[in-house]
């Protein structure tokens, strides 16, 4: 094995950066925060200088730590923006202007259903959607691997119920 860390790092980045970003973006609904954290996570991996045994799970758990830390900051930022009248100009940044009314409604409905299911199940569902293995999911979230299948089934059921509930209500 003469492969350098740099090569391995680049390969890992290519394979994992976008899925990590997508996971964080869906989880938070904040693409800027997701972009920051995904980049910071890879910087931490680079600073580490060697590959962890289970890189996929390592990246997710490091990102989740950064994410939790960022949340306190984010709440403060929300408060800051509230007292600034011009803050309105930042408010809609997450939604590109070309998205139609219909897709915004759908998006909001999906967001509510996702936010309505228990946190751990939400995380599992999003990780599975990005193709993480049961082992990676278990390791990243600190669960028994044997419980992943059952919890996933529950997560999907809960999501669907909430989603359809909203659909009927409107």
């Amino acid at each position, binding site marked *: 094995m003469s492969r350098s860390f740099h090569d391995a790092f680049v390969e890992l980045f290519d394979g994992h950066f976008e899925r990590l970003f997508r996971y964080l973006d869906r989880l938070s609904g904040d693409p800027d925060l997701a972009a920051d954290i*995904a980049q910071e996570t890879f910087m931490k991996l680079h600073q580490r200088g060697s590959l962890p045994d289970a890189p996929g799970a390592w990246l997710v758990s490091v990102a989740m730590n950064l994410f939790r830390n960022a949340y306190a900051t984010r709440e403060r930022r929300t408060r800051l923006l509230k007292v600034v009248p011009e803050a309105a100009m930042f408010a809609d940044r997450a939604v590109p202007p070309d998205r139609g009314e219909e897709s915004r409604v759908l998006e909001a409905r999906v967001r509510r259903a996702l936010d309505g299911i228990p946190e751990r199940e939400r995380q599992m569902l999003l990780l599975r959607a990005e193709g993480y293995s049961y082992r990676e999911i278990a390791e990243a979230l600190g669960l028994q691997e044997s419980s992943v299948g059952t919890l996933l089934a529950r997560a999907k059921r809960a999501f669907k119920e909430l989603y359809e509930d909203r659909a009927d209500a409107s």
Partner: protein
Amino acid sequence: MHLNDDQMQRFLHGELDARSQEVLSTHVAGCERCARQLAEAEREEKEIFELLGTLDHAPPRVEVESIARDRSALAVWGRRAAVFVAAAALAGAAYAIPGSPLPTLVDRVAQWIAGEPSTTSEETEVAPRVTSGIAVPGQARFAIVFAAEQKSGVAALSPGDGPNVVVRAFGGTVTFTTDIDRLTIDNRESSADYEIEIPRDISFCEVSIGARRIVVKDGESFATGLVTDERGRFLLPLTAAKN
């Protein structure tokens, strides 16, 4: 025995060990109920994953080399700090960070946001007309993007010795968005003037104004072809080019 939730999911995701895979495949092949449920579970999952896709935003353009090169976390908070700085500048006196020259302001706001409110009160020169500004770490190749041409307004460019690309807006409010290798200035409806410092260390920097692109630094050459003002700054008009 029919498949339970766990077995159904594992079957679907190829997460069964070889022995279970064999046993359950045999069962499913001969059990209409399980075969139907499996197909249903697969369809349902596909539907859910498609719905989750409606939440997606475009991933950031990140060059892996820029992460591999930059060992400081500085480049990362640039994007967040961008919003803070503009907001703090607007909030002005309410936050007792009036007109501090950048990038000191950025540092303070970043510290303050990060939960370590700066207690230093050393007052440096106040630049009263700065209405918003930002300092972002410059990458080797950097782009400064003005969203649109303006009715009036000019950008005064000068080389800087610090590591940051510094932009100050005068007489108008704009929104900054930063990426690792670019700074986007939403200047639509604005008639502000700007002061831009570009680190000498950056090897390549371009400014675009609407559809217009101007290379302002390429190696040693800086702002080739632009006129200078009395302070030796290179003036780049932000108005539509006259032909």
